[in-house]
């Protein structure tokens, strides 16, 4: 196109077993531009970036840098082509000094010229305005500084393309501003920056252009002025409602009458709850070391949802309810009685169940069988000296394998070898078996097939019918609208709104998520 184009990716395709992760995706980066790459979970952003950094190999398409086709097989190749990446998790060594981290792995001689490195590091740090020194041990710097050191390393390696993969997710406002200043400086020097983040405001603060991906496909590339927040959100979440805001209402209604009548049931329940029902759980300015204080209550048989983009604090809030993080303050009442929930076991004893967001890390015990995974929570609640007998556990497992239609070779198959959707069902079964009064489901439908998503939504409504309170979190607004009678909207770690009744429609939700204006 023109000389300013730094990097192009054309018709990129990437397949994983059973999934087309990227389908004919194009991406263009110009010199001196900050280009935001947006999309919800599973949109394919991280796959695209991993292709660019040589972690994955693409199955089709081509990449050029400054007009020259390049082949990237390894992180080293990427670096040699001038592509540097700074990941969300710091990929530096905390036990080494800042200077060492900047120069290790690329020294030109076998000897370390410590003083020289420190001097050079200090120069670069000063030039970039990073407030630390070469001699400082990296582990003693704040995360923001660590991130900036990683950027400094990349800059010093003469990178042309700098990828920042969610660099701001663990920084506070001041730190974010420092980072942004650095980004602008680099931009002025002609570096092309790919910026991946979940914080919308930040995108609008620094970016020049936005590329949106959804479900492995390119939605479009837009100059930032031409894409207001609410439209960005709708593009990310998949409802195209530009200019048609008034009609959305009817659209929701249409969804309401679609297959299986799921939403019809939802509607009924919403009505019922309005009538009478007592509060099951109530929290006042509850906070944890991860979540800012918030108020929350849920009635018996109610389904509500926490919504907001990733990183908005929705997961952290429900973790605080379950006592999964260190609870730092607030009062909690269950059925009107004040209780203390500091550890997961406390919550479980009060009839709360929690399906964690990260299934691999916090959910499944991969090497244990389906049966053992199903009975785990009940077993823990039963206590040490009341083991569930083999035959009993087999009966439980068989029952739930049948009820939830879990596809497994047998109940003794290690759960790690099941597909994502079936793993999720196993964990659901685990909590259902404890017969909870209140079930928190954090992204139960993430990364699983459509059929299972439907089954899980139906199940949620069925539970509510039986009087179980459910908190449901999903990245897909549609799902939440179908199931929840009340939505708590979070943005940048604060509760920014609560929607119910007539406000429960896509347009309103997206508006609230994106922020007042737009």
């Amino acid at each position, binding site marked *: 196109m023109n000389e300013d184009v730094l990097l192009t990716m054309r018709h990129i395709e990437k397949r994983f077993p059973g999934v087309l992760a990227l389908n004919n995706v194009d991406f263009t980066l110009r010199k001196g531009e900050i280009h935001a790459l947006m999309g919800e979970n599973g949109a394919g952003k991280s796959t695209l970036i991993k292709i660019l950094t040589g972690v994955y190999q693409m199955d089709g398409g081509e990449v050029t840098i400054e007009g020259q086709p390049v082949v990237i097989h390894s992180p080293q190749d990427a670096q040699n082509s001038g592509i540097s990446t700074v990941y969300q998790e710091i990929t530096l060594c905390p036990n080494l000094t800042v200077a060492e981290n900047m120069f290790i792995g690329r020294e030109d001689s076998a000897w370390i010229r410590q003083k020289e490195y420190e001097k050079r590091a200090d120069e670069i740090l000063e030039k970039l305005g990073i407030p630390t020194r070469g001699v400082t041990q990296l582990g003693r710097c704040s995360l923001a500084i660590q991130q900036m050191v990683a950027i400094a390393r990349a800059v010093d390696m003469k990178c042309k393309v700098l990828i920042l993969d969610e660099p701001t997710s663990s920084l506070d406002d001041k730190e974010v501003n420092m980072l942004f200043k650095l980004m602008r400086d680099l931009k002025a020097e002609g570096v092309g920056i790919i910026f991946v983040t979940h914080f919308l405001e930040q995108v609008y603060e620094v970016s020049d252009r936005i590329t949106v991906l959804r479900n492995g496909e390119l939605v479009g590339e837009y100059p930032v002025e031409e894409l207001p927040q609410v439209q960005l959100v709708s593009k990310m979440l998949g409802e195209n409602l530009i200019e048609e805001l008034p009609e959305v209402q009817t659209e929701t209604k249409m969804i309401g009458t679609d297959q299986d009548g799921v939403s019809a049931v939802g509607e009924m329940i919403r009505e019922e709850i309005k009538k009478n029902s007592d509060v099951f759980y109530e929290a006042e300015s509850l906070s944890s070391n991860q979540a800012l204080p918030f108020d929350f209550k849920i009635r018996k048989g109610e389904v509500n949802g926490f919504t907001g983009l990733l990183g908005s604090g929705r997961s952290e809030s429900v973790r605080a309810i*379950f006592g*999964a993080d260190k609870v730092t303050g607030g009062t909690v009442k269950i059925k009107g009685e004040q209780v203390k929930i500091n*550890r*997961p*076991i406390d*919550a*479980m004893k009060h009839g709360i169940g*929690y399906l*964690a967001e990260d299934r691999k*890390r*916090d*959910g*499944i*015990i*991969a*090497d*244990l069988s389906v049966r*053992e995974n199903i*009975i*785990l*929570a009940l*077993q*823990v*609640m*039963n*206590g*040490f*000296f*009341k*083991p*569930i007998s083999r035959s009993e556990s087999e009966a439980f497992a068989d029952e739930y394998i049948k009820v939830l239609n879990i596809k497994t*070779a047998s109940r003794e198959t*290690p759960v790690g*070898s099941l597909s994502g959707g079936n793993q999720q069902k196993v964990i659901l079964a*685990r909590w259902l078996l404890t017969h909870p009064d209140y079930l928190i489901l954090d992204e139960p439908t993430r990364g699983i097939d459509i059929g299972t998503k439907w089954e899980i939504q139906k199940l949620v409504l069925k539970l509510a019918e039986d009087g179980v309170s459910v908190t449901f979190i999903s990245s897909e607004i549609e799902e939440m609208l179908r199931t929840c009678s009340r939505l708590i909207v979070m943005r940048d770690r604060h509760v920014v709104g609560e929607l119910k009744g007539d406000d429960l429609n896509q347009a309103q939700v997206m508006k609230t998520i994106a922020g007042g204006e737009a």
Partner: protein
Amino acid sequence: MDTKKKFNLSLGQLTIPIIAILILVVFNLIRDPSFFSIGITQNNDGNSVLSGNLITVINGASELAILAMGMTLVTAACGGQDISVGAAAAIAGSAFVKILKSGDSISVGTVILAFLFACVVAMIFGAFNGTLVAVFKIQPMIATLILYTCGRSIAYWINGGATPTVQSSIITAIGGFIPGIPVPTPVLIVVIVAIIFKLVFHFTSLEILTQSVGINGSAARLNGINSTFIKLLSFIVLGVCVAVAGCIGVSRLGLINHETLLIDIEMDTILAVAIGGNNLGGGKFKISGSIIGAYVIQMLTITLYAMKVSSTDVKAYKAIVIILLVVIGSPVVKAKFEKLMTKLRSGKAKETVKGAE
């Protein structure tokens, strides 16, 4: 691909130890079939007892098997090993003897009391190790290095530096044979300990909790499991195993020698756990694997003895067998082997296609 996975699973983690023991059996059958002959002989006390190489193997591996059971639990929960079991066994043995020697005569009551005392002592030391690991989050090997260093000296101190002998028919019966029963008593004790483990797993939820903590600590916590308690408990259980092994060791010789009692057994114990197919990094475990592992080690040792290898030289041969076992079991080697096999197969397939053309 799928069927292959299932095939591997059905054999499970016991594949390696069972193959190892089969190889040893076949090897001995070829070498000298009389290795397996079992006879009945009269021992010094006039009892008719079983004798033969196999009995020596099974009898000799008793302490190892018992320690391996406890070690399996610690390994599973903590992802590390206790290297102080030999030293702790010396302490337990000394405590055992201390009580035995305190009275004038040794009755069954004294023996039981002494055994209980030994158990309590060993459990306290187990709890010490466990606290360092579970509460202070120190790696098991480093934490138990402390007791490894000074354990035998503590044992020495318990009996005032002496190596007292215990003369009692009860003790001889524990270490050797109970009159009228031709099976060595330590073997019976192994069976009893194994049954107790089985019962514990049956009547408590220890097994599933331990595995959960070992496989995925984060998920275990979110399911309300107190992993500190589980880790501590695993060390205390190992403490009991240590006490039993220590008492058997003392009873065999009729004396406590703090320097040599169960010397170097910690390494063999860890080995037994590893040969049993248990991941030394923690997680899923099979006690039965470790028991078989213990017998593999003992069988190997006795086979080497039968081949006139001196007791001190055995270690070198053992090392070669260990390396062979772990190399075969290494995932990298397995992956390479599978790659080679698919290559060969696809090569063959191509050839047949060519042939068809």
